[in-house]
């Protein structure tokens, strides 16, 4: 094989390797974000599940009042740091997250914190057994969810 041909082959191999490695690392980043998105969506569904259960008890009088604290504790835990579920780059087009989250991050964090605070307030009422506050605080929490979805989620 002539020298120039060998050089060409070596360059081709090097280029292929470089491209392959770059592709692998971008696939890894993609996979990592996909896993983040799966996790985030699972958390959101868990929040929804707990909200549905609390609504059935607090609004419609389902006879599971003894379990209320389980649900409100989970809501406190799951809303504690919602912004961490939305790292930059986790806005693939097929998610419901709007780009405005990252464009308007401070506002987003503020609304997420409203949900955290509202969940804590609901849980506090349940812990103290102040039943007259349950529906009010549940509505407040729901409104905080809605306010955030309104601006930052595709529907």
């Amino acid at each position, binding site marked *: 094989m002539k020298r120039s041909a060998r050089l060409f082959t070596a360059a081709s191999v090097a280029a292929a390797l470089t491209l392959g490695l770059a592709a692998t690392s971008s696939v890894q980043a993609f996979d990592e974000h996909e896993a983040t998105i799966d996790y985030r969506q699972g958390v959101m569904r868990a929040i929804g599940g707990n909200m549905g259960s609390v609504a059935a008890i607090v609004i419609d009088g389902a006879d599971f009042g003894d379990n209320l604290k389980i649900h409100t504790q989970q809501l406190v835990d799951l809303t504690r740091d919602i912004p961490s579920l939305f790292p930059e780059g986790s806005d693939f087009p097929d998610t419901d997250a709007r780009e405005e989250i990252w464009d308007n991050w401070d506002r987003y964090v503020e609304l997420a914190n409203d949900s955290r605070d509202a969940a804590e307030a609901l849980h506090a009422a349940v812990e103290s057994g102040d039943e007259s506050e349950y529906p009010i605080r549940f509505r407040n929490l729901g409104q905080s969810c*809605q306010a955030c979805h309104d601006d930052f989620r595709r529907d």
Partner: protein
Amino acid sequence: MTSAATEPVAGVPVSRRRAAWLPAALLFAGLTALTPVQAEIAIGEVDPAASDEERIAYGEYVLRAGGCVTCHTAKDGEFLAGGRAIESPFGVFYGPNITPHPEYGIGDWSEADFRRALQEGRSPDGHHYYPAFPYTAYTRMRDEDIEALWAYLQSKVEPVAEENRSHELDWFARFRPALIGWKWLHFQPGRFEPDPDQSEQWNRGAYLTLALGHCMECHSPRTRTGGLELGRLGAGSRLPDGDVAPNITPDRDTGIGRWGERHIARYLEMGITRDGDFAGGSMADVIDHGTSHLTSEDRRAIAVYLRALDPIEYEPE
């Protein structure tokens, strides 16, 4: 001046390809321009038992049930002073100022002007409104509701000197006389007729859903010519902003067949879905500014009516 819808895109033809009907409509415009306009609708009797204060308070309720606030108030704007953008396949409409400001709002209108706008889709100077303003539904409104709404708007709303923003429409949509053709095809004026075979609650729900709340404007697919598909009312639609107004008929798989009346009523009050999710987007506005202000009886009536619709299996594309 053009009015606007209470929900984004309500009453607006839904896709660009459907603009193909326009040449036909233009032809119609020519053919029908000489047809006399409908006779002025007689002003109905007012409930003699209601005091002015009661009527005005009821008018505010009508405003909420009619979902007027959403389109007639810009985000962070003055109440009912207009400016809210409503996307459509034909461009962007801006909800106009309906405060009683004599120059920029509707302060110099008469009650008959107001009635004609809602029931006939015509402005005081006689031009036709774009159906972004859902007069196609409001035409079913009871006279006394319009009267109460008018009394409220004129007496309790602060006049705001906010000039109406011009719509930003594609060239083919700017020719307003084409609306005569559109109305000929798709607008059936007339009041809501209660069904004597149904309960009072069902009839109230039907009135709130079809007339005041104009729910079907967003929640129904549209024909090629931009009218509602009457055979699939409530079966859902993809809106020009990309969001889906879902199927609200009681089909178990594609609609809300698994929702009970209490789920629907709760959703209209708080935005919580049957599975604990919370509405966002345009429906959140509809709930915040509209249905959350209704009485629980009225929300329940809407639920009863929706549950009684024929289920339609359909998912918006």
